[in-house]
């Protein structure tokens, strides 16, 4: 008797069904992950920040995803530090575990954009200062205002926000970077009350070889230039450069030593007095760029010529050198100097070992000896928080997850966790009472020289189209375009971008809804009989917002 033949139709249907189920199964969310793709960004500004959540309740399990550009194989100790914090938190809350999503900075934003659009962005996302406003305005970040006003379970202060160096006032500038007036990140690896620089790492052996005193690195730009010339004359590459971040860094080294309070000249005294916070400064820069008032400041020629002169001391072919290759030049002893941040300190220490003697010195100040327009000072402590971790707005869809994420971030910023963290990562902490590791004390600029504020510098270049100004800058530094052409082109780019921002803040989605929300909150506080200090502070917030809108409406010329 013949075996019964399998019906090919049903077999085929079964295969197709299995394929479909496999595809669907991959998208089934695990516990703690966002349950659905986020809703498209709302056209109206976000509503009031959500109520302060309660600490993470047990025993529902969560897997909190953290995205960072510090991976397990990176040169820094940051990943190890973050891992220590998460491990300690899990030890306290076994139902909460963590998964790190690592992406190097190169491609970080591109990946993040894709993840937000596809609804797969992690819960906690490390961001650079220039990213918060953009993503907050897109409505994809969680507003931490209420969480900050609540008490942290891991600190004695009355409110979580008071545990940070600089207190609540250090967050004022952040509120101005988004149309909701909210705080959308938790600071890390920085300190608002310190002037932290990105110094030059230098090879003492090469300095000695060039006839320079390695124990007396240059303090002024004139001395710096002389040192670079001596190195170049000896056939040593003075400074290692690359075609990526170095363009912006070198521009910042030079640029942000010009134009202190430059924009104030365009505005009435009531918008520029000392009690107007940094948020006014950013508004004024945007306005001035939009109005074309920063197209040709008197200090530009000096600033740009110094920058161009600087570029002759970078290695030949730097425009074809990738970011990873510049540190290689320094660490193999071919280049005498390399600019880096405190985050690179530990990694470079390990890589250099005892190959050569090295040290660090702050970027030399440009004095009147070099340019009559130079400030001759380092930037004062910013007194504004600017770097840290944001939260994906989708956590609001699950209140328990929301509570767990906020609780974790409050633990993350506790003195206990931060003290352990800075010891591992060799980093700074934004939290009051956390010591600075000895190894990186040299990254803090001398306080007697760190007094420059509201420095306009090279904003007219860097606030332009990020896809174009680096290429234009390379062309300028290589001599392919003239100074005048360069200034004209970059100014046009930044003007176009700033116009869009100013018009959005003057429009229906800008200050108006922020003012309405703040007034509603003030009315609520007054009717509730809230503490007089808090009511006054809220009233000041309302007045502040109205004044900023008034400034934009008064001065903007479309």
């Amino acid at each position, binding site marked *: 008797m013949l075996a019964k033949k399998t019906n090919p139709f049903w077999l*085929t249907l079964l295969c*197709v069904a299995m394929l479909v189920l496999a595809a669907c199964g991959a998208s089934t969310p695990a516990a703690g992950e966002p349950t659905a793709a986020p809703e*498209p960004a709302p056209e109206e500004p976000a509503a009031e920040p959500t109520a302060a959540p309660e600490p993470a309740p047990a025993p529902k399990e969560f897997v909190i995803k953290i995205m960072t550009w510090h991976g397990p194989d990176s040169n820094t100790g940051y990943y190890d530090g973050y891992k220590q914090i998460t491990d300690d938190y899990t030890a306290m809350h076994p139902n909460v575990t963590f998964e790190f999503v690592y992406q190097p900075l190169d491609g970080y934003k591109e990946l993040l954009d894709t993840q937000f659009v596809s609804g797969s962005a992690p819960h906690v996302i490390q961001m650079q200062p220039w990213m918060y406003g953009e993503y907050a305005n897109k409505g994809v970040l969680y507003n931490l205002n209420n969480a900050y006003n609540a008490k942290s379970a891991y600190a004695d202060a009355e409110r979580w926000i008071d545990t940070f160096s600089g207190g609540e006032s250090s967050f004022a500038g952040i509120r101005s970077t988004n149309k909701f007036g909210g705080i959308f990140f938790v600071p890390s690896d920085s300190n608002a009350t310190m002037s932290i620089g990105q110094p030059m790492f230098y090879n003492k052996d090469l300095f000695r070889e060039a006839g320079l005193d390695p124990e007396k690195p240059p303090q002024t730009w004139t001395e710096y230039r002389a040192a670079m010339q001596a190195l170049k004359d000896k056939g040593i590459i003075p400074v290692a450069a690359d075609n990526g971040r170095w363009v912006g860094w070198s521009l910042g080294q030079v640029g942000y030593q010009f134009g202190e309070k430059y924009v104030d000249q365009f505005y009435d005294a009531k918008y520029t007095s000392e009690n107007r916070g940094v948020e006014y400064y950013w508004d004024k820069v945007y306005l001035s760029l939009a109005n074309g008032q920063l197209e040709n400041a008197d200090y530009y020629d000096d600033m740009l010529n110094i920058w161009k002169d600087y570029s002759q001391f970078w290695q*030949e072919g730097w425009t074809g050198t*990738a970011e990873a290759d510049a540190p290689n030049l320094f660490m193999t002893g071919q280049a005498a100097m390399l600019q880096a941040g405190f985050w690179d300190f530990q990694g470079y220490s390990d890589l250099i070992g005892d190959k050569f003697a090295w040290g660090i010195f702050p970027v030399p100040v440009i004095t009147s000896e070099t340019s009559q327009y130079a400030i001759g000072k380092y930037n004062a402590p910013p007194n504004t928080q600017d770097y840290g971790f944001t939260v994906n707005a989708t956590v609001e869809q699950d209140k328990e997850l929301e509570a767990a994420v906020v609780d974790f971030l409050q633990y993350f910023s506790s003195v206990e966790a931060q003290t352990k963290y800075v010891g591992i990562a060799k980093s700074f902490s934004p939290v009051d009472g956390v010591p600075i590791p000895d190894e990186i004390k040299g990254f803090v600029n001398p306080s007697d020289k760190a007094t420059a504020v509201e420095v306009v510098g090279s904003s007219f270049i860097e606030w332009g189209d990020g896809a174009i100004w680096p290429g234009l800058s390379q*062309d300028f530094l*290589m001599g392919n375009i003239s100074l005048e052409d360069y200034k004209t082109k970059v100014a046009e780019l930044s003007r176009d971008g700033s116009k869009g921002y100013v018009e959005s803040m003057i429009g229906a989605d800008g200050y108006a809804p922020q003012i309405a929300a703040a007034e509603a909150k003030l009315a609520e506080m007054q009717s509730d009989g809230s503490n007089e200090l808090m009511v006054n502070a809220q009233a000041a917030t309302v007045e502040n917002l109205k004044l900023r809108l008034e400034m934009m409406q008064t001065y903007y010329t479309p």
Partner: protein
Amino acid sequence: MADQLATNTAVHRTPSRRWRRQMWIGWAFVAPAVLLNVVFDWYPMFDGIYRSFYRWDGYNTAVYVGLENFEKIFNDTIFWTAVANMLFFLVASIVLMIPTIVTSVVLFRIRNMRAQYLYRVLFCIPMVVPWMVIILMWQFMYNPQYGLFNNLIVAVGMEHLTQTWLGDSELVKWCLVFMGFPFVTTNAALIYLGGLKSVSDSVWEAGALDGVGPIQKFWYLELPLITGQFSLNLIGTITAAITGYTTQLILTKGGPGFASMVPGLYMYFSAFKSQKYGYASALGMVMFVMSLVITLLSVRFLQKEEHQS
């Protein structure tokens, strides 16, 4: 008779039912591929066309701007610089198809089948190396300070001939083209080889009887007989040259300045660095039209040549 009628009816009904069943089986097999094709190829294409008429930052509501994006492209000097660079890479890519053709013919002429097989395998081995690894190796070789090329030049005592390679606006495009050395594309070579093998042996025998020499055989027999394969590879080469940008993204980011900027990279930067997704979509549309026009012209030219020969 009724039995006969019933049998006839059964005979006519059965093939139709079987045909319908087979049709459904066929659809069931192709459905996943069709679905994936629609979702990942056709939908993004039509979405890109739609977005090209809007100003959109990727998140907020898109604003309809009509042909504004295309007007901006027309007046965008960086775009036209990128197009000029792209045309350079396109011409270079087409010219550099020749080594692959010659290699395929040489391979085809190897009499010893074992030797031919061995060479085919050797040609295929580089395919397993990811292109990213190859790019990074070339980046290392081109490094002006510690790269292979400058060190070789110094080693032979010609230090004055060292170059900055990727850091030189004049040389960077040539450097990127040279990365394809020895300019033999394995996929294309296998396609040509397949085409030559499909030709009837009687053609080669007739040529041998007529006393055709190796050069004449190449020009008058082998080359004309692989015109179809050449057209296929040409379309791929044109599309890759017009839309490709991976190498520039990794090695030069379009620099120095904009010396190696290509439309694909400009589109990528417009989307992910400038957050101008509408403008980037419009750039994509323009690149598609360019690719289509050049491809059609090339294929038409080849068909005309084939017809004339």
